[in-house]
């Protein structure tokens, strides 16, 4: 009995030169990739740039898909690596974090009553180190700790530790804002 073509089958077909399979695979995951890129950049324009980089690089990356990991895991690993490359290209921290203003504007437009929350989130995401931000972006995208660990190339314990650190950082930022 054959059911809907799986991601793995599509990826392997794509790796064997099947353009239709590649197109199907990418179309299936594009929106999710874009959303992930937005979460780790906080900027629509940067997310679009990053998604473009990923799309451009994926054909060459197909050879690295060996079927042992889930396609989504492999895709997110490509995305995280592309994000790291993008960050390296940036010259200043302010430029690296400027994108969160886009997020703030989007949130304001979406819900004018959430100004306080947005201010806190803006501050939080600006202050979180890249590794914590990447980890949160994955976990927020319904990745398990084990999957996030595989994508980021760290242990599951490290993921749990980072989540714990992120919580502490967010709590500290929250407390500081309340005191201010």
């Amino acid at each position, binding site marked *: *009995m054959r059911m809907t073509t799986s991601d793995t089958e599509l990826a392997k077909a794509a790796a064997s030169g099947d353009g239709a399979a590649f197109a199907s695979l*990418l179309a299936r995951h594009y929106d999710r990739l874009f959303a992930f890129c937005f979460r780790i950049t906080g900027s629509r324009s940067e997310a679009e740039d990053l998604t*473009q980089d990923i*799309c451009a690089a994926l054909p060459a990356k197909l050879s690295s898909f060996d079927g042992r990991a889930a396609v989504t895991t492999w895709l997110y690993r490509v995305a995280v690596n592309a994000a790291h490359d993008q960050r390296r290209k940036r010259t200043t921290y302010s430029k690296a974090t400027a994108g969160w203003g886009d997020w703030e504007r*989007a*949130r304001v437009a979406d819900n004018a009553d959430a100004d306080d929350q947005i201010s806190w989130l803006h501050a939080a995401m600006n202050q979180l180190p890249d590794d914590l931000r990447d980890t949160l972006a994955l976990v927020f995208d319904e990745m398990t700790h084990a999957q996030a660990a595989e994508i980021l190339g760290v242990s599951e314990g490290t993921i749990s530790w980072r989540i714990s650190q992120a919580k502490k950082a967010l709590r500290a930022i929250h407390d500081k804002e309340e005191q201010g």
Partner: protein
Amino acid sequence: MDDLDQLKSALDRATPQPDPAAKAAHLALAMQNFERMKPAEISWFERLRARMTLRSGGAVAGSLTVCIGALLLVLPQTPDAPEMPQSPALLQTADDLFAESSMADAAEITGMAPLGRTMAGAVPVDAPLTGQLDMLFNSRSVMSIQAPWSSDTWLVFVSTSPSGNTGISFDETVLAKPVNLGGASGLSAQISSNLLVFEVNTAGVDLISEPIGDVLFEGDDSQPIQLDRPGQDMELVQFAAAVIGFSQATQGQTELGDWGMTDAITFAAEHLGTDPSGQRTAILAQMRAIAGQ
């Protein structure tokens, strides 16, 4: 709701939908690059090097040890000859490959030509298989030969060419069942959970150590084997057996007995066949270099 939940909630609400125009442009760019990067246009050596960096020996070697008695390997060839490796670096690469050799690696070496989509799996057998076999594949090429290093070991080579874009996949419930190897032969074999599944495609030969996807076996409608090019295929299988044995010899596998690298090289040289692409000659040269000959 804690801070983390609050952040996630805000992120979910703030995440925009992709711009349709940008999305279309990105997908078009990806397809453009895909056309440029089609595996058939990637050199033989580049594919070998790429897989070399990906291959991790541990898990693969464990499975192979269990299944050493029998394996399955598919090595079809296409009319378009691959690029011949010319770089001196290839010998070093091949040396590294054999240093961590496994049957999967042997399959890689032997099946380096651009290939059509083909699935192959290992079928452990405890009896010599002679004559024509039937297998539960859509279209297939099945051959068995006695391992050159042991009269007790038979190598079973199975190739299939599934139609469409999807490959054959296996399910554990099927793997646990005896598979009829053919009414004509009257033999059956238990395909164990240690089944080795190779997928051979234009990117090379990959070992899939875990069952994937859905079941494609349908009932017990075995069909006769069809060998499109029996002579050429048998040449290839014999040569592949030599490479497999050589790979095992580099690991000091006790199953090989006194049979060693020199025997493998001799066997390979005797079974070069027509060598339409020149690949086997190149592989034989690598084997000799590694053996210090």
